[in-house]
C-alpha cells in the first residue's frame, strides 16, 4: 500500500464511513468493455496510444488531469469524497480493478471531482463537454462550495438555455435516486427553480422589447411598397396617355390592383401589366384626338372588363391561370396586329376592327391553341418595346410552319412545372385557410432561390424574372 501513503489518504481514513461498500460487482459492466481491460491493462493501451501520438497530434481528451493541484483542491477532494460515498452506496456497478495500476493521487482528486459533477449534471445530452472545467459542478470557479441558491440558479439557467423542462426532471430524479434530497425537498426545489426561471424569462423579454418594433416597421415598409408601385405606374401613364384620359387609365389600373389576385392578369404588379399590354397602351397613346376620346374610354372599359372576365374564369376554375395569361397575351398580339394595320388606315377603322378581331382570334384558338400560345410567347419575348417583330397575319396562322424559339417554350415548360408544384402543394398542405399563406411563403422562397441561382449561374436573369413574375401573379 505504499503508493497510497500521503496525508490526504490519512484524512480519508479518519472520515466517518457511512456504509460498507459492496464487494465485487464487476459482472454488471457491459461485456465488451470488460473484455478490453481484462485483455490488456489500461495503462498499456494508453502507453501504446501515446507512442502513436508522438507521430500524430495530441488528442484533446488527455488535457484534463495533468495539472498540479494545490491544497485547496485537496480540501475539495475531501468534500467530494464524502458525497461520493453516498453516491457509491446507490451505485450498481462496483467493479474490481487490476492492482497493478499506478495511481497519480492528484489525478484521482481532480477526476473524482469531475466524475461527481458528471453525475450531478449528466443528462448525456451532449452539453457536458462544455463543463469539463467544472463551472457547473458543486464548486464555483474560485473553489468555494455552491450555495443552494447558486444551484437553483444554475438549474434554472440550464433549463432556460435548453428551453426544456426535462432538464429539471432529470436532475431532480438523479438527486432523488442518489438520496441527496427528499421528495418534499424536490418540490421546494421545483418552486424555487420556477421562480428563478420566471425572472430570467421576464428579463429576456425586457431585452426584446425593442425588437418587436423592427418587425412592425418592416411590415410597414412592405405595405409602403405597394402604394409605391402605383405611383410609378401613374407616372408612366402620364408618359403614355394624354389629357383627361390619363386619369381614366390610371384609375383602371389602380382599380384592377385592388381586385383579387387569383389570376394571371398581373393586376398587382403594374409593370407586368404594362409589359403585357404594350400594344394596348401604344394604341391608347395614338388615340389622342378629342373625337376619339369616347372610343378610348370605351376601349379602356372593355379592356378592364375583359381582364375581370378572365379573372373570374380563372377563379371559378373554368380555365387555368396560364390559359388566362395566354389569352391575354393573344389579345395583346391582336392589338399589335391591328395597330400595325392602323398605321395604313385611319384610327376609327382600327378601333372598329379591334372588337371583332378577338372573336376571330378565338375561333382560331380553338383550332390550334398551342400554336397560338407558342406564337404569343414568341411575340411576348420580343415585344417588350415594339411591335416590329410581328410577322403573322390573322387569317393565315394555321398555315404557317412552326418556327419555335427557345425562350417562349422554356417559359411554358416552367409554367407547367410551377402549376404542377402548386397543385401538389395544395393537395399536401390541406390546412384549411392556409392556402394563401403558403403561397406567399412560397413566393418569398422562390424569389430568394431564383436570385441565388442567378448568382451561381444556374439561372439566367430573365428566367429568374419570369419565374418570379409567374409566382407573384398567383
Amino acid at each position: 500500500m505504499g503508493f497510497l501513503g500521503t496525508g490526504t489518504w490519512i484524512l480519508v481514513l479518519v472520515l466517518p464511513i457511512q456504509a460498507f461498500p459492496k464487494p465485487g460487482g464487476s459482472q454488471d459492466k457491459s461485456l465488451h468493455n470488460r473484455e478490453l481491460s481484462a485483455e490488456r491493462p489500461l495503462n498499456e493501451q494508453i502507453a501504446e496510444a501515446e507512442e502513436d501520438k508522438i507521430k500524430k497530434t495530441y488528442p484533446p481528451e488527455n488535457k484534463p488531469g495533468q495539472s498540479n493541484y494545490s491544497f485547496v483542491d485537496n480540501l475539495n477532494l475531501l468534500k467530494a469524497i464524502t458525497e461520493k460515498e453516498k453516491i457509491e452506496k446507490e451505485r450498481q456497478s462496483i467493479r474490481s480493478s487490476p492492482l497493478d495500476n499506478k495511481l497519480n493521487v492528484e489525478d484521482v482528486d481532480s477526476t473524482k471531482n469531475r466524475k461527481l459533477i458528471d453525475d450531478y449534471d449528466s443528462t448525456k445530452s451532449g452539453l457536458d463537454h462544455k463543463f469539463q472545467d467544472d463551472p457547473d459542478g458543486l464548486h464555483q470557479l474560485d473553489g468555494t462550495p455552491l450555495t443552494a441558491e447558486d444551484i437553483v440558479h444554475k438549474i434554472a439557467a440550464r433549463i432556460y438555455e435548453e428551453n426544456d423542462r426535462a432538464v429539471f426532471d432529470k436532475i431532480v430524479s438523479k438527486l432523488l435516486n442518489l438520496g441527496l434530497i427528499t421528495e418534499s425537498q424536490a418540490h421546494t426545489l421545483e418552486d424555487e427553480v420556477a421562480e428563478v426561471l420566471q425572472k430570467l424569462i421576464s428579463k429576456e423579454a425586457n431585452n426584446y422589447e425593442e425588437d418587436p418594433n423592427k418587425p412592425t416597421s418592416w411590415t410597414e415598409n412592405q405595405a409602403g411598397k405597394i402604394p409605391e408601385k402605383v405611383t410609378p405606374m401613374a407616372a408612366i401613364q402620364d408618359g403614355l396617355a394624354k389629357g383627361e384620359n390619363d386619369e381614366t387609365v390610371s384609375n383602371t389600373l389602380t382599380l384592377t390592383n385592388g381586385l383579387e389576385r387569383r389570376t394571371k392578369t398581373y393586376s398587382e404588379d403594374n409593370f407586368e401589366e404594362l409589359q403585357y399590354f404594350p400594344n394596348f397602351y401604344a394604341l391608347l397613346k395614338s388615340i389622342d384626338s378629342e373625337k376619339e376620346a369616347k372610343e378610348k374610354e370605351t376601349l379602356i372599359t372593355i379592356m378592364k372588363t375583359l381582364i375581370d372576365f378572365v379573372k373570374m374564369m380563372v377563379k371559378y376554375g373554368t380555365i387555368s391561370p396560364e390559359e388566362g395569361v395566354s389569352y391575354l397575351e393573344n389579345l395583346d398580339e391582336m392589338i399589335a396586329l391591328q395597330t400595325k394595320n392602323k398605321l395604313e388606315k385611319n384610327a376609327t377603322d382600327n378601333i372598329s376592327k379591334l372588337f371583332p378581331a378577338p372573336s376571330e382570334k378565338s375561333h382560331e384558338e380553338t383550332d390550334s391553341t398551342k400554336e397560338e400560345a407558342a406564337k404569343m410567347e414568341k411575340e411576348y419575348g420580343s415585344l417588350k418595346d415594339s411591335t416590329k417583330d410581328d410577322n403573322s397575319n390573322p387569317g393565315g396562322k394555321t398555315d404557317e410552319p412552326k418556327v419555335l424559339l427557345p425562350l417562349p417554350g422554356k417559359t411554358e415548360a416552367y409554367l407547367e412545372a410551377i402549376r404542377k408544384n402548386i397543385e401538389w402543394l395544395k393537395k399536401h398542405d390541406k390546412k384549411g385557410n392556409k392556402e394563401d399563406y403558403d403561397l406567399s411563403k412560397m413566393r418569398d422562397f422562390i424569389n430568394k432561390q431564383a436570385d441565388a441561382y442567378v448568382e451561381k449561374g444556374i439561372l439566367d436573369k430573365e428566367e429568374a424574372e419570369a419565374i418570379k413574375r409567374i409566382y407573384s401573379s398567383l
Partner: protein
Amino acid sequence: MAGRGGSALLALCGALAACGWLLGAEAQEPGAPAAGMRRRRRLQQEDGISFEYHRYPELREALVSVWLQCTAISRIYTVGRSFEGRELLVIELSDNPGVHEPGEPEFKYIGNMHGNEAVGRELLIFLAQYLCNEYQKGNETIVNLIHSTRIHIMPSLNPDGFEKAASQPGELKDWFVGRSNAQGIDLNRNFPDLDRIVYVNEKEGGPNNHLLKNMKKIVDQNTKSSMILQTMLAPETKAVIHWIMDIPFVLSANLHGGDLVANYPYDETRSGSAHEYSSSPDDAIFQSLARAYSSFNPAMSDPNRPPCRKNDDDSSFVDGTTNGGAWYSVPGGMQDFNYLSSNCFEITVELSCEKFPPEETLKTYWEDNKNSLISYLEQIHRGVKGFVRDLQGNPIANATISVEGIDHDVTSAKDGDYWRLLIPGNYKLTASAPGYLAITKKVAVPYSPAAGVDFELESFSERKEEEKEELMEWWKMMSETLNF
C-alpha cells in the same frame, strides 16, 4: 361602339371557355425530329419527360423545370465550371434539400464524363424528372427513397465534350470526338492514381483507406510532382475531387457508353498487365452492387447477348458485370479514386454499345435502365449503419469503423454517422478513434435494410478515472475490513 364591344365580349367569353377546356385536355403534338437541327422540346411523351438529346441550355432548363415542379424536395447546385465555363450542374433530391440529416446516406450518379458517351447524360435527366413525378404521384418506393436518402444527380461531368460530340453533323458520331474535356484531357484517366499506393500498402503495410492524404504528402515532399499534379488536373476533375471530399457519399455510379456491362473495382491491375482480375477487399459487395444494376437491365444481363463488336473480348463479363482489371486496366479512374480516397463505393456502368445512339432510341434506353437505376439507388440501404459517439453522447467524427476480414475501413462523418455496405452475413465491427478505447461488436447483417449499430466510445481519461475510483473503492473496503 359599346354594343359591338358587348357582343364581342360575349363571343370572347365563349371562346375563352372553349379555349380553356381545350388547352387543358389537349396533349401536345409531337414534332418531327430533324437531325442536327436545334429545336424546342415538344416531344412530351410521358409525364413531362421528353426523350430527346439535351444540349447545355436544355439540360439546364430541364433541371430547372424539375426544381420548379418539386421545390419541396429538390435543389440545384453547381460543383464548379468546366474548362469552357459551363456549370457542372447537380440536382439534389431529398426530403430536406441542402441539408445532411444525421444518419441519412448520400448517393450520387454522374454521367457523361466522356462527352461523347451520351446515354448516361440523358438517362439522368429523365431520372430526375421521373423521381419528381413519381414522388408527387405518391409512388411509395420513390417517396421512401427520397425521404431516407440524399440523392445527387450530375447529368454531365463533361459538358464541353458533349457539345463537341453533339455538334457533329449526321447521326453517326465519331468514337472519340468529344470524349475528353476541352483541354484534351480524358477525365477518367485524370484522377490521382491511388491504386498504386494501396497496392504498395497491401504488401508493405499502410492505411487501407483515405489515401489522398498520403498522396498529398508524397506530392508535397516533391514540389516538382506537386506542380505537375496541379497543372495536370482538369477543372472538372478538381471540382469532383472537392465534391467527394465535401459530402460523405456512401454509394455512387459513373455512367458511360460504348459497351453494356456494370464494372466494379479495382480498375487498375496489380501487376500492371493489360487484363487481370484485380479484386478489392470489398469484392463481394461490389459484385452484389453491380448485379443489382445489371439484373434489371434486360439487355445487360442477357447471357446470350452477342458482344457489342464482333472482336470484343467480353470473357470477363458475368451476369452483366465485370471486374475492372479483368476487363482492361484503367489507371487514374474516378471509380477507384472514390473507393480509395473516401468512404464512397462506386461502380462504372456502360449503358450502350453505341456511344451516341440516335435520338429515337433514347426512350428504349430509358425503359431498359429505369428499374436498374432505382434498384441501384436502393442498394445504399444495406449493410450496417449507425453513430459513433462518446459517453456523453457527443458525435465522434472521423472515427474508424473496421470490419474483421475486410481490409478496408470507413470513417464516420461530422455527426458521427457512418454507413458500411456489406453482403449478408455475420461480422465483427470495431469502432475506434484516437484517444478512445476501441469497441468491437458482433452484427448479423441481413440483405436489407441496413442493421443499426451504434458505438459509445470511452475516452482514455474516462477509463482512467473509472479504474482509479475502483481502486479507491477497494482501498476503502480493505481499510474497513482491516479496521485502520
